[in-house]
């Protein structure tokens, strides 16, 4: 981190953003009290996954794309499966879809617990990192790690292992877990649901900067339930479209400073992730999560990005409760996977990764070879909105010292839990006050 003054100008730089997934930096330039430049730079090497998929079998897409991220591999696997199955003209069997949703609940639990407790909460205590927070609040960090462990355990039972699960395939699963295997998850999940409720109380007691964003929220729209693994795409701006229509709406541009693409809809930034999901789907949460949100004083929509940690905690309650419901209603799919016949076509798949909407599009030839691929990850979609948040935070925090303002900027980036590894396919802060 560096900051300095050149005449009336102030410059803030963070050359290696901490507690975000991947590598990136942040640069802010303030001249005569006006923010003249904000740049979130992603310099993790681009991964060229989309090009790597071309020429590969349609059956390989879930395993190849799961390697994009170690935190949200299920998101990649299931968006890929959805898109390939769409291309083949197959809708998933209800029991397979329920098992996928349960697997995804595991990923939400481990990812949200990781972000809330180890990456985001230290900011609200003035701690440098999770180690310092653990030395200060042992009980809280132990609770977070217990939650993460339950999420990992769900992924191990259903996916075969927590990182890059191996049991997911196009059409369903290689093997469906038995009822007994899933019943063994009930006691830990009931404890996790209680811990998640405690998490909501804990994070809602934090001291939040009074900031309100002017967001165009974009998220999947759930049917009767909070969205995870499928749905149309909706926005607070008013659109409600199919995945194919959404694919056409999202325009991505490359800027020289970043190895991630930057997405716009109708030429404007937008936001995906917990704030967006909650804004568009709060009414679809189960009663226990709605109660927790009400008790926490969380309005809907919530446009204070610093309160995203509260929304994430409410989603943690939801994910634990939803996992328990799915286990109670579990019917092993038989067979565990549907048979697909490839055809020359284009398919779309989108799911709600913990940090936002993830869209895949594949074009197949008649033999099932992938001829083109498009992957639109959450962080690419959120990058411009994060820059807008930074501009707002700096403009409203110019009275702060350079060190405090730099810290506030880092926090503003972490509000959105960016996954640079996914997008670079990014973080350091530099603020210039001139």
């Amino acid at each position, binding site marked *: 981190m560096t900051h300095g003054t050149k005449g009336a100008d102030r410059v803030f730089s963070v050359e290696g953003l*901490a*507690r*975000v*997934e*991947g*590598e990136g930096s942040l640069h802010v330039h303030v001249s005569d009290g006006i923010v003249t430049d904000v740049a979130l730079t992603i310099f993790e090497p681009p991964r060229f996954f989309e090009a790597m998929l071309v020429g590969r079998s349609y059956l390989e897409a879930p395993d190849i794309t799961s390697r994009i991220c*170690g*935190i949200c591999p299920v998101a990649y696997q299931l968006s890929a499966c959805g898109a390939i199955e769409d291309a083949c003209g197959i809708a998933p069997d209800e029991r397979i879809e329920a098992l996928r949703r349960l697997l995804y609940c595991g990923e939400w639990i481990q990812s949200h617990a*990781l972000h809330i407790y*180890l*990456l985001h909460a230290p900011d609200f205590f003035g701690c*440098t*990192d*999770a*180690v310092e927070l*653990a*030395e200060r609040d*042992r009980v809280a*960090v*132990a609770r977070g*790690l*217990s939650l*993460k*462990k339950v999420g*990992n355990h769900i992924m191990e039972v259903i996916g075969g292992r*927590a*990182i890059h699960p191996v049991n997911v395939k196009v059409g369903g699963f290689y093997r469906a877990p038995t009822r007994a295997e899933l019943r063994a998850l009930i006691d830990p999940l009931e404890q996790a649901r209680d811990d998640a409720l405690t998490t909501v109380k804990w994070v809602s007691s934090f001291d939040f900067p009074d900031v309100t964003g002017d967001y165009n929220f974009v998220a999947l729209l759930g049917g009767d339930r909070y969205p995870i693994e499928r749905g149309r795409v909706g926005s607070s701006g008013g659109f409600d479209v199919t995945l194919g229509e959404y694919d056409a709406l999202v325009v991505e541009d490359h800027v020289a400073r970043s190895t991630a693409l930057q997405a716009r809809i109708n030429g404007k930034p937008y936001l995906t992730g917990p704030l967006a999901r909650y804004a568009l789907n709060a009414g679809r949460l189960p009663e226990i999560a709605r109660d927790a949100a009400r008790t926490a004083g969380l309005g809907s929509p919530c446009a204070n990005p610093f309160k995203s940690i509260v929304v994430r905690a409410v989603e943690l309650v939801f994910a634990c409760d939803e996992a328990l419901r799915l286990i109670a209603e579990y019917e092993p799919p038989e067979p565990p996977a549907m048979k697909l016949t490839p055809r020359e076509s284009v398919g779309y798949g989108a799911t709600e990764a913990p940090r936002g909407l993830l869209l895949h599009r594949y074009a197949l030839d008649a033999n099932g070879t992938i001829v083109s691929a498009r992957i639109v990850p959450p962080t690419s979609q959120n990058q411009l909105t994060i820059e807008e948040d930074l501009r707002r935070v700096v403009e409203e925090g110019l009275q702060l010292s350079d060190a405090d303002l730099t810290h506030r900027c880092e926090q503003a980036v972490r509000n959105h839990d960016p996954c640079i*590894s996914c997008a670079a396919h990014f973080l350091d802060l530099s603020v210039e006050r001139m």
Partner: protein
Amino acid sequence: MSDVSHPSRVVVAGIGNEYRQDDGAGLAVARLVSSSSPEIGDVGPLGEPLDLLGRWDDADLAIVIDTVRSGAQSGTIRLIELRESDDPTEEAVSGATSTHGIGLIGVLRIARAINRAPHRVVVVAIEGSEFGLGVGLTPEVKRAVTDAAQQIIELLEEAA
């Protein structure tokens, strides 16, 4: 390998990626050691030290095996016991700020802060030379895997 006497709860954890040649050495050693006794739990393979949390809790002895690149001769084996009185290096701690970089020292400090740390932690470091894409260990590292497993089993016998 023969069954061995060992402390009441022993876990071994290999860290690495077996699709990056010598980086898979830790995983191979963990497999060999855990196969020597059904009472030794292999909690790997782990992609990063953070994954140790929740898996090594309250163990009497945790052995973490990883491939390193320090400039030593390929195949060199080092056994290092991490004691609480040891001052972690700045470099080791600074890695605690990113999920990509929470180092073993940071993870151990978190575990100690929440009273879930193993009683003893021993790191077994094997010097590697090839970390490019591909399966299989270089000959020096392959020999070191067998030697490291034997040294760990002897360590367990001494600790019993």
